[in-house]
């Protein structure tokens, strides 16, 4: 068997495989739910209800989607230029760290001045964290998959060191937890009384900005050219290494905004469980969105919905929340396969 590229896939060819992928995911989830002794329709219904069945559920999903939009954008931007940033987790923590360092009273400013500074400082921190693997790649050809991945562990241990030492909250009763940021460093709620902070709006704006950069700016054009065909880009005179560095800075900055938004909008302080793997889930989000920045928003909502819905379902019928992980993993694998099938035809020898 071999794959033969399809020059011009028709409508059916480009829509059917992804639809089948989602359908198969649902079937797999149903089978697992039955295996756990529950009615699959009830389980799926509860997941849906838990994700979007009430105002509370919906807001919870939007809150959960916020960091995923940022990390999804970070991954999408990097992958677009074929810069494999697996380290959004580390960059997220770098952003959170910066927010806590500067937001716990070091800058005695009003919210209107403090919040933008915190966001920019966080982006800078995340960008610097990714700058190291980017330089190693363009200078010495070190594989960024390895460096960015390993940086996640190094950086988390570094955070752990800080939380046990200089950043430890003296009032924290011994928990590895930072002080809380000051009130001026908290992102306000979008609508008073509703548990949804401005981080979500910022994420939407970021998606729009990234989309405009990709489509309208020379940098976006360069990123896409470098990603699609590095040899041709180099031949045409595009400074490939400079583009990779800029891409890394943008990607790291976006991932760091997730950390900023989680600390300033939701948690208020830095802990080691600030992110339950938002950096890694960002990869799933970006892939499901086919790296399209606007589709990242939809994919992040989908993924967040499954997580939130599965939590609520699990409480109701006792099927483990791992079902959510399996559903996402299945959806991702099948979606990758489906995308392949929209572009290639399987030929038997």
């Amino acid at each position, binding site marked *: 068997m071999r794959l033969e590229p399809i020059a011009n896939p028709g409508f059916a060819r480009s829509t059917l495989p992804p639809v089948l992928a989602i359908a198969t995911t649902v079937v797999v989830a149903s089978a697992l739910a039955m295996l756990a002794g529950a009615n699959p329709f009830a389980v799926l219904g509860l997941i849906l209800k838990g994700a979007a069945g009430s105002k509370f559920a919906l807001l919870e999903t939007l809150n959960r989607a916020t960091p995923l939009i940022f990390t999804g954008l970070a991954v999408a931007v990097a992958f677009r230029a074929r810069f494999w940033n697996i380290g959004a987790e580390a960059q997220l923590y770098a952003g959170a760290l910066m927010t806590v360092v500067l937001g716990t009273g070091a800058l005695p400013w009003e919210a209107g001045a403090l919040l933008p500074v915190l966001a920019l400082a966080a982006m800078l921190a995340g960008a610097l964290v990714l700058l190291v693997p980017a330089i190693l790649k363009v200078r010495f050809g070190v594989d960024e998959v390895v460096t960015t991945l390993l940086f996640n562990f190094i950086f988390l241990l570094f955070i752990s060191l800080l939380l046990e030492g200089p950043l430890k909250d003296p009032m924290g009763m011994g928990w590895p937890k930072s002080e809380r940021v000051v009130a001026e460093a908290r992102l306000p709620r979008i609508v008073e009384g509703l548990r949804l902070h401005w981080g979500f709006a910022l994420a939407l704006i970021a998606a729009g900005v990234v989309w405009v950069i990709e489509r309208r700016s*020379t940098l976006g054009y360069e990123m896409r050219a470098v990603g699609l065909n590095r040899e*041709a880009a180099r031949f045409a005179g595009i400074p490939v290494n400079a583009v990779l560095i800029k891409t890394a800075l943008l990607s790291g900055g976006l991932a760091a905004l997730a950390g900023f938004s989680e600390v300033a909008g939701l948690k208020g302080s830095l802990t080691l469980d600030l992110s339950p793997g938002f950096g890694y889930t960002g990869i799933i989000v970006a892939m499901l969105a086919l790296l399209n920045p606007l589709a990242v928003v939809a994919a992040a909502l989908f993924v967040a919905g499954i997580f939130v819905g599965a939590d609520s379902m699990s409480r109701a019928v006792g099927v483990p929340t791992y079902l959510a992980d399996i559903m996402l993993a299945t959806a991702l694998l099948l979606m990758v396969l489906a995308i392949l099938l929209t572009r290639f035809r399987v030929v038997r020898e």
Partner: protein
Amino acid sequence: MTGAEAAQVVLRLDRITKRFDALTANDAVSLDLRRGEVVALLGENGAGKTTLMNILFGQYTADEGRVEVMGRDLPPGNSRAALQAGVGMVHQHFTLADNMTVLENVTLGTEPLWRWRSDQSVARARLADLVRDFRLTVDPDARVGSLTVGERQRVEILKALYREARILILDEPTAVLTPQETVDLFATLRKAVAMGLSIMFISHKLHEVMDISDRIVVLRHGRVVAEMATADTDRHALAAAMVGSEISAPRVAPGNPGAALLRLSDVSTPDRGNAPGLKRVMLALRAGQITGLAGVSGNGQAALADLIGGLCVPESGRLDLDGQTRDRWSPRVAVEHGIARIPEDRHKTGTIADFTLTENAVLESYHKPPMSRNGWMNWGQAEAETQAIIRGYDVRCPGPDTRIRLLSGGNMQKLILGRVLEAAPRIILANQPVRGLDIGAVNYVHEQLLKARDRGAAVLLISEDLDEIMALSDVIHVMSQGRLSPEFARGSMTPTDLGVWMAGHGFDEGLAHAS
């Protein structure tokens, strides 16, 4: 070889025809290979040798004709069937696993993948026999990654022999070898033939073909143009058959040479793997003149193209533009100084397949006004420019938003022409500009190059097609092993003369031959 006529035919290609759109790569090619015989398949790049072998090996399916091995039809499009029928192929680019040992590479694919433990002693003994019988000295436990190119080739041959191949096909086997390794290879091949194997030897090196083969089949533009016993021919007759002699005088009016716009003085560049770099090259590209560069591919043309195109810098020697040496030298600097570059590989280097025509059209100009301002693209302007190219250069396409991968090679090339010629360049580097194009597109590209020459551009035309070189060029150089021949005036050399230079002769005798 005596009695070859009487020997059994082991491989027969019968009127094989293969078309790619308008291009006929193989046109009713018929060929017999007998037991214990070495047949050389001779032809320039693009003559159809590789296509023919790919059909034999099942990578392509022929439009017409059939393949017969040992008197039996070979099912089309089936690589495995060719292997099982006893055909072994040694590719130009080796298909070995670098991280495995020689023994593992040789046995790979002949044993089931999943086993508790594999008994290597039988395989080891067989391999040792083959090494001895064929004098293919190589350590069975060495990792392939640590072997020299010559040794890797031996592993490839061992692989075929281990699979009990009765027919060996060697695709440009000496292209990567040192002279001594070539001598060893030929010794091995003679052994193999003595043991009853049959060998198809694909090459464009005349002296090797004369040395090793019993019969020679010459392919040209997809057709068999000559077939002769090696004993009955000589190198000059072969060169003439290979490059054709129908056109010996330039077709077009001579140009009006002006000042040298680009000059290389004593330039050398490092070798790249097996590809030679430039060896003390002297070259002047004059305004209003087409300089043709002939040569067998892989003799340094790529190094020269990369140098002029801005992708590499001289290791020693000078590159002067308008009489001045440039400190910074990059693709962008080259373009800014009016060098138009038509790359050898329009699919991989010249265009980005998944970009639209518009996005491809501005690849070299996107970073400055009017295509962009302050980092923001002006797509409206880019699209207008693309529309102008589509009209001006007759690019047949659904529109500027089409992804360029959907275009034919000819239309792709026209877009590239438009992209580089719209800027009215003063120097044009055309590297294999018509390879793989149909005749209409070929003529179009040539017309554009002549038009540019007539308005005063200096054109460097790199081609393996001697007809093309002779038809268009005002002056001709030949490249061999990174060395550049003296400049030959138009009409002063016959194809046979040039063929001798292409085969690497004349460089030592020097100027005596040139005058």
